[in-house]
């Protein structure tokens, strides 16, 4: 690990200022992803600004009946919150489908959104990777790509956003609150938070340098049957090959977002309109522009079949 200096900020505005003030600075929250990458020297910040004292660890009701989740709320706390379990079941389910109990106790809401890809070529510093070293090429293209993306990828990068929590937040139409080094706050819809790779895969989110996530807001509950179905190589503690977050209403309408296949949680309102016609129609719309590799073409039928399983489960729950 490269040497670095460390400070604890006292307010969100001070934290944002501190990171902007020194080149090569980074925020640290739970640290479960950042420290892993620092040990491999994929990340090498010269200065860390710890955000644990910013009092961003609360879950509070909003005026319009939703919930405001502080950026520093841990994955375990969020998944176990009584209101989340009751009204946003898809979010609890998605969180407990990811990582391990130990990691969820430390990993935070904002950190989870910012976790970096698990592409093996990103992790292997001997390989070309446009995300790790812009302009160096992509060893994953033409390499071993079974886990990697099938849609929304580019000629520069075929990595996926690996998380589960964000897929549920996308289906719930969550939004992300931030503060920048000038003290300006703004709200970013989940739909716009993660970027498609394009020609700049090293730029992964809509955040500007020094901009700090302060909270994630969930709109008021929409009812329906909440399902998170994750397909992976092990029964536990593995990244998704494909995952489906869904909220299905009694009349068969609903929302679905797919994880494990793209640079961001993959959701299209035009595809959701196809829900009454079945999984094949939804999947065909979602994956119309898919460009799978030889290794990961299996994800196309896997998306359709996972969607079908989710819709069947929703039907069973509804009928019960």
């Amino acid at each position, binding site marked *: 690990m490269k*040497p670095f*200096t460390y400070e604890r900020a006292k307010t969100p505005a001070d934290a944002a200022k501190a990171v902007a003030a020194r080149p*090569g600075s980074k925020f640290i929250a739970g640290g479960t992803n950042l420290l*892993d990458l620092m040990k491999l020297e994929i*990340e*090498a*910040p010269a200065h860390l600004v710890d955000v644990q004292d910013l009092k961003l660890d609360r879950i509070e009701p909003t005026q319009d009946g939703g919930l405001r989740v502080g950026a520093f709320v841990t994955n375990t706390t969020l998944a176990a919150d009584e209101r989340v379990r009751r009204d946003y079941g898809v979010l609890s389910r998605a969180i407990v489908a990811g990582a391990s109990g*130990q*990691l969820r106790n430390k990993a935070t809401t904002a950190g989870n959104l910012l976790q970096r890809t698990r592409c093996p070529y990103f992790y292997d510093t001997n390989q070309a990777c446009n995300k790790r*070293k812009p302009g160096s090429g992509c060893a994953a293209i033409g390499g071993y790509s079974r886990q990697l993306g099938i849609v929304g990828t580019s000629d520069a990068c075929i990595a996926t956003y690996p998380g589960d929590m964000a897929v549920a937040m996308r289906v719930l139409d969550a939004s992300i609150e931030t503060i920048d080094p000038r003290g300006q706050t703004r709200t970013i819809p989940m739909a716009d938070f993660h970027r498609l790779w394009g020609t700049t895969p090293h730029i992964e989110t809509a955040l500007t340098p020094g901009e700090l996530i302060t909270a994630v807001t969930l709109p008021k509950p929409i009812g329906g049957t909440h399902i998170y179905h994750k397909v992976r190589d092990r029964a536990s503690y593995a990244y998704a090959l494909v995952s489906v977050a869904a909220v299905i209403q009694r009349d068969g309408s609903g929302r679905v977002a797919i994880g494990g296949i793209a640079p961001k949680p993959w959701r299209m309102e035009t595809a959701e309109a196809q829900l009454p016609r079945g999984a094949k129609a939804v999947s065909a719309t979602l994956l119309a522009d898919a460009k799978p590799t030889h290794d990961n073409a299996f994800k196309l039928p896997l998306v359709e079949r996972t969607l079908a399983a989710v819709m069947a489960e929703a039907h069973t729950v509804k009928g019960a």
Partner: protein
Amino acid sequence: MQTPGDTAISRRGILAGSAAAAALTTVPLAGADAQGAAPAVAQPTTMKVSLKINGTNRTLDVDTRTTLLDALRENLHLTGTKKGCDHGQCGACTVIVEGKRINSCLSLAVMHEGDAITTIEGLGTPDKLHPMQAAFVKHDGYQCGYCTPGQICSAVAVLGEIKAGVPSHVSASLTGGFEASTAEIRERMSGNICRCGAYSNIVDAMTDVAGAKA
């Protein structure tokens, strides 16, 4: 309590000696190309941190890079906590911080100023085992023992999480109470790997302790 490494020549002493010798003869690898790296080469920085380890306050001067795991093992010589993968994948380094189990390898010591930390040495002693330690002995919940301190710290915390209403991936309902069933224990312990494969006996030990509590 017996201190590990009391014997004149311990296995640990030999291993530590060889590691130091190896370090002296190893040329550092060229740094990876890292985005966001500092323009100037940063110098190592040390900081003071106070930790409440197993009920005792300890103040340390540590390099900022020191993980909680390395602070426990190298600075405080509490070698019960093990380093397995050092990347949060195996669970051998699991300790309980402020009542919650975490991977001590993926946390910096300086991030834990004032925190109460329980390691395997703080759960029980050879003369007075924690009920979970006693259950692991009774059910033979290990073979080589390397993952065992992490397994036991995790196991103690898992039963607490079930009681506190933390759901898991295999919980049938999110709103009902959660039980220490075999399926729940297996899922919740998936962050602790045992290469000897003592899993079924670990489940038996945990089931025993969970039943005794009910």
